[in-house]
């Protein structure tokens, strides 16, 4: 770890009267994989959304490369998410009208790449995740596991500095989940990306360099996270 790439300080967030996060401090180093774990409802997904700039915290700040994202406009944060962040959710959320290759190429096209280069890069990433043969298929013609592999390829295609993965294997069978995690971890190790990984499964958290355990919206210093 070489200094904080991304850090959250005093992150507090409520949904109406229900507190979800109660003053969380967290740092993610360059190229570091950090798992956020804890029981259902502990606030781990909310924390990921705040760190990725998808949700704005009620209090506290999120600093990415020394810039306070809470001061940025939605448009600027959205641009950041397209260029420097990669996002992967439990259900791939591919564009159903586009083929797998077009879905994966999309972030590159939005960032200004040429069509041919974008397709070539997309095909490389699809191969890396073992779904090269799906390149010209649309999501409805693919299995859930194949869609998730495409979504992982799409999250990595721009070479993002940080990847936010929220239960990335939650909808996959065990073997597919392991294959997606292994391919993702090998790729981020190569390109030096950091990962914020939300999961409630220990074997998925074990892909990370370290683990932050949440309990009732706060970091559990004992690392247990159980609601006893």
């Amino acid at each position, binding site marked *: 770890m070489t200094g904080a790439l991304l850090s959250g300080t005093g992150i507090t967030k409520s949904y109406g009267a229900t507190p979800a996060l109660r003053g969380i401090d967290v740092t993610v180093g360059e190229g570091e994989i950090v798992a956020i774990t804890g029981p259902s409802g502990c606030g781990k997904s909310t924390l990921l959304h705040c760190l990725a700039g998808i949700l704005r915290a009620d209090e506290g700040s999120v600093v990415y490369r020394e810039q306070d994202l809470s001061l940025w406009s939605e448009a600027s944060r959205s641009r950041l998410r397209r260029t420097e962040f990669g996002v992967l959710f439990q259900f791939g959320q591919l564009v159903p009208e586009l083929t797998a290759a077009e879905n994966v190429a999309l972030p590159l096209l939005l960032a200004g790449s040429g069509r041919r280069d974008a397709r070539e890069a997309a095909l490389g990433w699809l191969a890396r995740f073992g779904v090269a043969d799906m390149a010209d298929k649309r999501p409805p013609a693919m299995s859930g596991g194949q869609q998730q592999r495409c979504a992982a390829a799409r999250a990595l295609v721009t070479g993002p500095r940080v990847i936010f993965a929220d239960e990335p294997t939650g909808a996959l069978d065990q073997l597919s989940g*392991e294959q997606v*995690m*292994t391919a993702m*971890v*090998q790729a981020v190790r190569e390109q030096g990306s950091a990962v914020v990984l939300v999961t409630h*499964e*220990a*074997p998925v*958290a*074990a*892909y*990370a*360099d370290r*683990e932050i355990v949440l309990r009732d919206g706060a970091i559990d210093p*004992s*690392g*247990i*996270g*159980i*609601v*006893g």
Partner: protein
Amino acid sequence: MSTAHVLLGLLAGGPRHGYDLKRAHDDRLPQAKPLAYGQVYATLGRLERDGLVAQSGQDQEAGPERTSYELTELGRERLAAWLTEVEPPAPYVSSVLFNKVVVALLAGGTDQATGYLTAQRVAHMTRMRELTATKTRPGASVGDVVAADYAIGHLDADLRWLQTTLARVAELQKEVTS
């Protein structure tokens, strides 16, 4: 764990000497505790005594003379029987982890048990991360992955048990000390 049966299995493809068997054992069962030479020769001695293997020749390649062993017909039958025999699934619930929680409650109380469970969880997660790093290392063999997966699956089962037991420590304390 039956080292004898693994050695019989390694001899199924043809005669081998002790040194070769040790190397094949460690290659085919990566992450297992490496087999000591002494154990190889002691096991071969027992297998020979029981008529399951027999000496098949001497070979001397730039070193000391080595005795090769081969499977006998009886050895082949014993190996086939072992391979079709289903292992009894967890006939007794025996675990140092479980014993330690009960003894911690008897001898120390809930804080002692909770402290132990918490520390054990950290140790389990650390080991799981090491094994995951081994299997995701570029160039990891299928054997490495399969061996790591076996251990990770068992550690995960322990971790689930540690987590649910942490939630039940107070309840268990009442029962153990009543």
